[in-house]
């Protein structure tokens, strides 16, 4: 069946859809964005990239009200003058050129916005707008067109902006180019006929080399010095020795009037090293690996003072305060419910997508999202002391166990280097004592592990890019090494092995007719509720092309959805929602009928009796009860195969906060899976990993929600799995796209492949070192040889590591 797709967002259009200007839309939200854009002559949005839009969420006007509180507003305004204000907002939905176009033309939609500039890699927009414009209005405008701003803490991102690498690289590049030009005559002995000119250019070369050693190369000296102070050795130690020897020798030659020495190689060497560092530092700027709990919790909350509602910052909320939480808002502190029944969605916390019911007087943990009508709560614990954040603080205090052990390779390298230098020194002292110093210096110069130092950043940098294309985003290079050392893999179950975006759906009740299916899907498609989306997925293949039209639509928070299709009222939602008369009856009968189920059974067929604790949505058309959709969490596709494959190489563990309902399935499907633990609290998970590590295991933990945050942090490698990589991932070493979990084995193999690439690079660099040493020991390392050998080795290593890493598709 061919489906029309939405002109705005590209989703399937169900039924007749929403139509305007001969274009079909999947929902009213997309249609209104289109209307807004076309009425402002921004139709180009759709020409740049087709179906580039994102489906806007139904925005609650109150959602951004906190931004207008003066203290909070100040936090998000970078700069303000008499007429305008500037603010930089993180808009995770930015994804293509059409987005840039639309955002940068925002002033045409709302003249209060003066200008907007997008930073694409960071997914940020810098907006300059009228000082009088409330920040909440700006946020609402952005949400309305589908770019919901994220007001979490972005501290870490700001630090990353450092441009020092580029400055250092620029200085080194400038010196390298200039010195090469000036020393060119030396290579061909032309200089000898004009000693004055040659000396003049040597002084010039010295002049430009000073900032290179003092500024550009300073990081290497600092790092080497730090390592030596802690009595360990890293690769920067031999590099620093090499650089210093090279520089000292060259300066000596210049001032002795013996030409320019190796000053050209020196500048080139630092330049190549810095390119490596810069390449390494170009990581995923838009992703955040360091989020703590504050990024999940709202910035402000509505406090009830007497009968007055005031908005205050989270840290001003005290125990005993009454707060108000609205539909879709996240509860920032542990609290007790004062209002009637609501549902709490803990999917950020546990990965469990099915909301939990809470009654008046129930204790509610922070981190849950409220579904239902506006509710009053009384605070039991402050935000930073709540159940979840306490765990977080605890881990931070303890500090993650560091992988100890010095860089062995560097130690061997330095040892071998010193031995050779000493041996050659003794030999030359006996043979020709006048040349001893020169030979030792040239050995130190040529043995400098430049190629070795370049192979790592380039190999790992390229492998990181390859992995990024496959949906695994690493925080930095070191994570590759950590992945390679893994012996045990620990999986969280809910939200990791199972999915929290779609549920397994069963319809219980009389079979639906074709028309009814079409009606249902048309109705649920207008809702963004996760359960509605699951129903859409479930029924999608059963629909037939039709011309049904949704004439009226209403979503009642926490209850259900209701719509008018061809003069028929279709309702999906809770039992109470189905028919309030049923409810009235239930209440009147309450003394006689203790449970809803038993009173319910008198209204519908016996086979449709609901089971306690199941998650279901009830369907009725024109008031006639037809049956219910029952939701169950579902394993991610392909996950069983992944577990089987991984079990061959690693010890697997599954930890779950749930009851052991899936234990048998897992054990039957993956017999190698021996360590299955259920009903684990966040603290239990953390302790379990620590116990494994005490047994010298290297643990890779894969989890999602906030309740895994402690475990992810303590594990040697913590991989957060995320449906949307720009949102809601706890602090971790890497972020994995949920849809790419099935290729986890491939990801680990790719990381391992980097070891092979590194080995090849090491062999090459050692060969270069041996060739160089042969020149140095025999006393033939002329500046010309050095000038050829050093860039050659550097460039060939970069080429080898890049080509090999990219060969791995």
């Amino acid at each position, binding site marked *: 069946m061919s489906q029309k797709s939405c002109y705005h967002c590209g989703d399937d259009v169900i039924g007749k859809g929403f139509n305007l200007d001969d274009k079909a839309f999947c929902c009213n939200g997309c249609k209104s964005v289109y209307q807004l854009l*076309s*009425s402002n*002559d921004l139709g*180009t949005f759709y020409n740049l990239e087709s179906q580039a839009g994102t489906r806007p969420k139904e925005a609650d006007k109150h959602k951004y009200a906190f931004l207008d509180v003066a203290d909070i507003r100040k936090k998000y305004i970078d700069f303000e003058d008499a007429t305008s204000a500037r603010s930089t907002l993180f808009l995770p939905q930015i994804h293509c*050129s059409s987005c*840039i*176009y639309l955002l*940068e*033309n925002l002033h*045409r939609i709302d003249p209060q916005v003066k200008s907007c*500039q*997008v*930073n*694409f*890699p*960071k997914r940020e927009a810098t907006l300059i707008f009228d000082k009088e414009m409330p920040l909440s209005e700006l946020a609402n405008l952005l949400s309305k067109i589908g770019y919901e701003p994220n007001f979490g803490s972005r501290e870490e991102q700001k630090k990353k*902006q450092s*441009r020092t690498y*580029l*400055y250092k690289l*620029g*200085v080194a590049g*400038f010196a390298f*180019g*200039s010195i090469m*030009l*000036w020393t060119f005559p030396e290579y061909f002995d032309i200089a000898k006929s*004009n000693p004055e*000119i040659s000396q*003049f*250019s040597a002084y*010039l070369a010295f002049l*430009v080399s000073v900032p290179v050693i003092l500024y550009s190369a300073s990081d290497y000296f600092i790092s080497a010095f730090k390592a030596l102070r802690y009595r360990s050795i890293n690769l920067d130690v031999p590099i620093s020795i090499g650089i210093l020897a090279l520089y000292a020798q060259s300066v000596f030659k210049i001032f002795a009037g013996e030409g320019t020495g190796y000053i050209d190689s020196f500048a080139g060497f630092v330049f190549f090293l810095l390119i490596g560092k810069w390449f390494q530092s170009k990581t995923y700027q838009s992703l955040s690996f360091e989020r703590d709990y504050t990024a999940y919790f709202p910035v402000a909350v509505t406090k009830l003072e007497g009968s007055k509602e005031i908005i205050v910052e989270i840290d001003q909320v005290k125990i005993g305060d009454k707060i108000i939480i609205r539909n879709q808002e996240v509860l920032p502190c542990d609290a007790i419910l004062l209002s009637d029944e609501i549902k709490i969605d803990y999917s950020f916390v546990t990965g469990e997508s099915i909301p939990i019911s809470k009654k008046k007087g129930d204790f509610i943990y922070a981190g849950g999202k409220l579904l239902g009508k506006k509710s009053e709560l009384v605070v039991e614990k402050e935000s930073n002391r709540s159940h979840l954040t306490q765990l977080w603080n605890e881990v931070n205090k303890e500090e993650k166990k560091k992988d100890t052990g010095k860089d062995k390779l560097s130690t061997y390298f330095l040892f071998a280097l010193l031995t050779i230098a000493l041996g050659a020194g003794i030999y030359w002292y006996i043979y020709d004592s006048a040349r001893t110093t020169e030979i030792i210096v040239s050995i130190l110069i040529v043995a400098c592990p430049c190629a070795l130092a370049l192979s790592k950043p380039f190999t790992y940098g390229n492998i990181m890019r390859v992995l990024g294309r496959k949906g695994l985003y690493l925080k930095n290079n070191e994570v590759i090494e950590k992945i390679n050392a893994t012996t045990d893999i620990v999986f969280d179950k809910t939200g990791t092995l199972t999915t929290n975006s779609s549920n397994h759906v069963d319809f219980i009740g009389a079979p639906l007719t074709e028309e009814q299916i079409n009606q249902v899907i048309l109705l649920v498609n207008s809702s963004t509720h996760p359960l509605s989306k699951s129903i859409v997925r479930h029924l999608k293949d059963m629909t037939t092309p039709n011309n049904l039209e949704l004439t009226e639509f209403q979503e009642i928070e926490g209850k259900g959805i209701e719509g008018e299709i061809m003069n028929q009222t279709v309702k999906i939602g809770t039992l109470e929602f189905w028919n309030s008369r049923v409810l009235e009856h239930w209440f009147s009968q309450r003394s006689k009928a203790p449970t809803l189920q038993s009173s319910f059974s008198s209204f519908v067929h016996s086979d449709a009796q609901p089971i306690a604790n199941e998650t279901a949505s009830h369907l009725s058309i024109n008031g006639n009860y037809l049956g219910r959709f029952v939701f169950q969490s579902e394993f991610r596709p392909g996950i069983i195969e992944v577990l089987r494959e991984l079990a061959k190489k690693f010890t697997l563990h599954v930890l779950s906060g749930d009851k052991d309902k899936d234990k048998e399935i897992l054990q039957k499907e993956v017999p190698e899976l021996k360590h299955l633990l259920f009903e684990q609290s966040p603290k239990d998970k953390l302790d379990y990993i620590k116990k494994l590590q005490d047994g010298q295991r290297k643990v890779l933990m894969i989890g999602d929600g906030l309740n895994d945050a402690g475990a992810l942090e303590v594990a040697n490698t913590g991989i957060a799995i995320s449906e949307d990589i720009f949102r809601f991932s706890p602090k971790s070493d890497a972020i994995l796209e949920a849809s790419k979990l099935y290729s986890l084995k491939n990801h680990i193999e790719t990381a391992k492949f980097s070891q092979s690439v590194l080995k090849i690079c090491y062999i090459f660099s050692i060969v270069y070192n041996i060739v160089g040493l042969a020149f140095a020991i025999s006393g033939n390392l002329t500046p010309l040889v050095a000038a050829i050998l050093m860039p050659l080795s550097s460039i060939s290593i970069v080429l080898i590591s890049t080509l090999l890493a990219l060969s791995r598709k």
Partner: protein
Amino acid sequence: MGVIYLMLVVSFIIAIIFLLGFFWATKNGQFDDDYAPSVRILFEDEEIQVKNKKTESNGNRKV
């Protein structure tokens, strides 16, 4: 051969100018985003057109 001195100095000065240019560009954030500018350059024509349209129609804009 005296001119060589001059050329050496001139080459040095030119290189310094380029280095300062690079610093300026870095400071301005030109290397922060390597994607958006490549797209942005294609928008310009249309924007001018719209402005013209606005001035021509003088408020009686037709959509």
